[in-house]
């Protein structure tokens, strides 16, 4: 008897304990969805920064409200931290982020409008193939040496064009096998010349400029030495930077600390040198969960949020010391694609079974699949309402987005109609057969471990089964999936995502050009001949070739509108949705103007801590 009572007491305690977990674990979708429409993230951005000359020095003057100096901002990076502090050697996002903090480029992107604006340069002029850049006079590196045209010429000629370090910038500006050239006109003027008019080059000028007196000896020692130059083991005191901050210390797997660069060239309206913050710290955090915990424990001041956490932070927000900002859809695209390949591999076997080729290469079949997919439902259930259904090849915040391409809802009747038109039929049990009496059955892949894509896969499978198709959903390991997509090409349908640039559609050339390395839906390997293109594939090739050569924005927009139109109609990729980027930052930080293009800290030099009214 005693035992039974004892047992009950324990059971009661356990249930009571579990009960307290219940509430927190059920995400409140209404509130999450509210975060999208919430208007508290609206603010009037400050007027654009102006060029001001004081005592012969060309400063850039911030027009944001004047703040107080001092304090620290603690941000975070996910993963194992930077691999190098050499801006010309970074091959991963975190290293690039660190480089961006320390080194400014000649030009930059206006974070509010997406235009190209001068940064380290005072002004720029584009004349067809010529880019004339005027530098600011009197600027200094963090060690006090002047920043001149020599540094610019050196950075481009001896590092980027010479192919030292990471060569991806160089590879992307080779035009018909030729590189642009750079020449010094005088101490504060440089001229770049491209072999042909090439629009994407202008944005490339945001690439960092290196201090010649520091980098030249390293470049002379050759490529192998340059790979280890300014690595994570380098002494922080040896760094000479042009950006708002300079590295103070790097503690492996824990944090990177930056201190303000006293020679920075941005000033406030009182003519005091920015940045306001004394220090900027990036904690190196292993995973998302730990990042959230650290923010809650107040070890972090700013955090990017996802999914269910948004709902929770939104409920916490009114009685906490932070504000949640909605930065709009992110720059990536997530899509479902079919293998349109009709070629054979080395062994004379088709990559895709011939009967499936007939389906996938049929536009009406692809359109039917598209109409069967319930994007709204996926946004609601998988992204907790924090996403926007996507129908275009350019991401929703792209300045090249074709706004004429309208979204449409799931429409099974239309899908059935399209299939019927192509001779597909259903048997009594609702199973779909093609006109040659083949059961419509195929494999759907995605990378295992990515819970979002796995969830999408499950819902796509359900949606397509509504049409009577048999879908074998197989999440596989990321690397083997990449191998399938890039080498063996033996897949039917796949759910993938790609990062994109909201500013430069030409960065998608590898995807859309028929010989591109990521032309997944109809991948051609080295050995494959470039014939039997679809008519629209041929047109895409033309658009991409011409779009890059056109300089005028409106002219380019016409080309890239057409490419989006083609993608919208032919559906080589069936886009699903774009997650929305959400950031939380503590209220004590002022001059925070997050934008979809620049993120929350694009104006890091203007952000300050309000010491009185922080709460």
């Amino acid at each position, binding site marked *: 008897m005693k035992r039974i009572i004892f047992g009950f007491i324990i059971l009661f305690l356990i249930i009571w304990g579990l009960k307290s977990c219940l509430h927190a674990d059920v995400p409140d979708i209404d509130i999450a969805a509210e975060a999208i429409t919430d208007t508290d993230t609206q603010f009037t951005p400050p007027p654009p920064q102006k060029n001001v000359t004081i005592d012969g020095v060309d400063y850039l003057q911030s027009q944001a409200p004047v703040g107080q100096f001092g304090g620290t901002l603690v941000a975070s990076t996910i993963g194992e931290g930077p691999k190098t502090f050499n801006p010309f050697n970074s091959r991963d996002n975190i290293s690039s982020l660190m480089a961006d903090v320390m080194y400014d480029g000649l030009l930059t992107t206006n974070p509010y409008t997406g235009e190209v604006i001068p940064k380290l340069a005072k002004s720029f002029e584009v004349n067809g193939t010529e880019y004339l850049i005027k530098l600011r006079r009197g600027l200094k590196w963090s060690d006090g040496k002047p920043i001149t045209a020599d540094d610019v010429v050196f950075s481009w000629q001896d590092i980027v064009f010479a192919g030292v370090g990471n060569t991806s910038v160089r590879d992307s500006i080779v035009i018909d096998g030729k590189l642009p050239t750079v020449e010094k006109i005088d101490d504060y003027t440089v001229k770049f010349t491209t072999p042909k008019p090439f629009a994407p080059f202008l944005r490339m000028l945001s690439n960092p400029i290196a201090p010649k007196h520091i980098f030249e000896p390293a470049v002379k020692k050759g490529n192998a030495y340059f790979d280890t130059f300014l690595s994570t083991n380098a002494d922080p005191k040896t760094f000479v930077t042009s950006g708002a901050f300079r590295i103070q210390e790097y503690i492996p*797997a824990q944090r990177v600390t930056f201190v303000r660069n006293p020679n920075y060239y941005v000033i406030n309206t009182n003519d005091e040198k920015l940045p306001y913050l004394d220090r900027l710290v990036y904690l190196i955090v292993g995973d998302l969960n730990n990042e959230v915990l650290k923010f809650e424990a107040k070890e972090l001041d700013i955090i990017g949020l996802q999914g269910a956490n948004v709902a929770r932070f939104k409920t916490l927000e009114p009685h906490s010391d932070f504000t949640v900002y909605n930065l709009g859809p992110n720059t990536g695209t997530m899509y479902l694609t079919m293998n349109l390949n009709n070629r054979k591999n080395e062994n004379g076997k088709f990559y895709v079974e011939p009967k499936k080729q007939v389906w996938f290469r049929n536009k009406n079949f692809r359109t039917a699949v598209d109409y069967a997919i319930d994007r709204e439902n996926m946004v609601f259930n998988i992204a907790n309402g924090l996403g926007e259904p996507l129908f275009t090849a350019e991401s929703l915040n792209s300045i090249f987005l074709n706004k004429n391409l309208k979204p449409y809802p799931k429409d099974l009747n239309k899908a059935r109609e399209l299939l019927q038109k192509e001779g597909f039929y259903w048997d009594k049990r609702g199973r779909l057969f093609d006109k040659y009496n083949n059961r419509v059955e195929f494999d759907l892949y995605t990378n295992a471990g990515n819970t979002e894509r796995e969830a999408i896969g499950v819902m796509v499978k359900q949606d397509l089964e509504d049409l009577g198709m048999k879908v074998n959903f197989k999440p596989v390991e990321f690397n083997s999936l990449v191998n399938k997509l890039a080498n063996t090409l033996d897949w039917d349908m796949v759910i993938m995502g790609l990062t994109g640039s909201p500013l430069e559609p030409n960065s998608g050339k590898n995807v859309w050009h028929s010989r591109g390395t990521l032309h997944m839906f109809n991948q051609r390997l080295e050995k494959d001949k470039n014939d039997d293109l679809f008519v629209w594939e041929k047109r895409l090739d033309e658009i991409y070739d011409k779009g890059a050569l056109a300089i005028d924005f409106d002219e380019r927009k016409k080309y890239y509108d057409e490419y989006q139109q083609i993608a919208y109609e032919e559906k080589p990729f069936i886009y699903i949705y774009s997650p929305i980027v959400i950031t939380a930052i503590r209220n004590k930080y002022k001059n925070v103007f997050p934008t979809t293009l620049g993120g929350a800290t694009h104006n890091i030099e203007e952000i300050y801590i309000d010491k009185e009214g922080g709460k």
Partner: protein
Amino acid sequence: MQILLYILKRILQTIPLLIIVSIVSFFIIRLSPVDPLAELRLNPSVSKETLQRETERLGLDKPIIVQYGKWAKSFIKGDLGVTSNGELVSAKLKERIPNTLLLTAIVIFLTWVVGVPLGVAAALNWKTPFDRMMTVLTSIGMAIPSFFFAVLLLIFAVKTGWFPVGGLTCTNFSELSLGGKILDLTHHLFLPVVVLFTISLAGLQRQMRANLLDVLDSDYVKFARAKGLSEFKVVYKHALRNAINPMITLLGFEFAGLLSGAALTEYVFQYPGLGRLILEAVLKSDINLVMASLMMGAIMLVLGNLIADILLIITDPRIRDK
């Protein structure tokens, strides 16, 4: 002399072992479908030329045998090579080893200082309420998965704010005084040590208790008692000495775990130790780093066993005479 010869023989024996370990691990890593360039391949702005150059830089265009030969040659010379990002592997390891050693050494020290006496006490008070209570506690300690316990403690840290959420030092560490630094380290180390301590303490206490109970039940202990020796002498001179042998073997394994035993806990607590480094290296198939850590693990294991064997020779005359 005999011992020296024995040690030499053992060291020679480890050479083929290490070669086999290295071959097996190298081939398993390289033949697995993990592609170190997978991320790059899926980045639309990376060109074919860049990919080609990266492949050559990492030596992926050569056959595995050649890759292995190249690695083995430099390994013998004492050069661990560079990571896939061009950092020196030896420098990377050097950054992390002290942190991991700090954590594991504290834990091993604490578990042995607390665990062995507790085990002895439990065995001597066999079937008393004390022993039963210890059994319940250690069962809990052994049953609870380390990562789960670590997560629980992390939540505790967040809710109470008494402890930092992971890491090893706070952001203004370099400005603290020496005393402040030690205090800060202790503050950060407390939770991970609690996790590892609880779990290994349970195992060690059970082991010690079982060994001693075994020995206490043997004929020579009964004889010693019958002979009229004091209980103190029976236990501490005769029984304990015999019960300690398996513990020494265990110590050898603990030595091997010095560098690798805390990986999971390190990961949860975002501890800047080897665990996180190696995990990322494996996921990215960063061959030089993975191989260096595997070889390190193998050498530590061999070394740990060797130390245990030598200690056994010293403590146990039966082995010495053979």
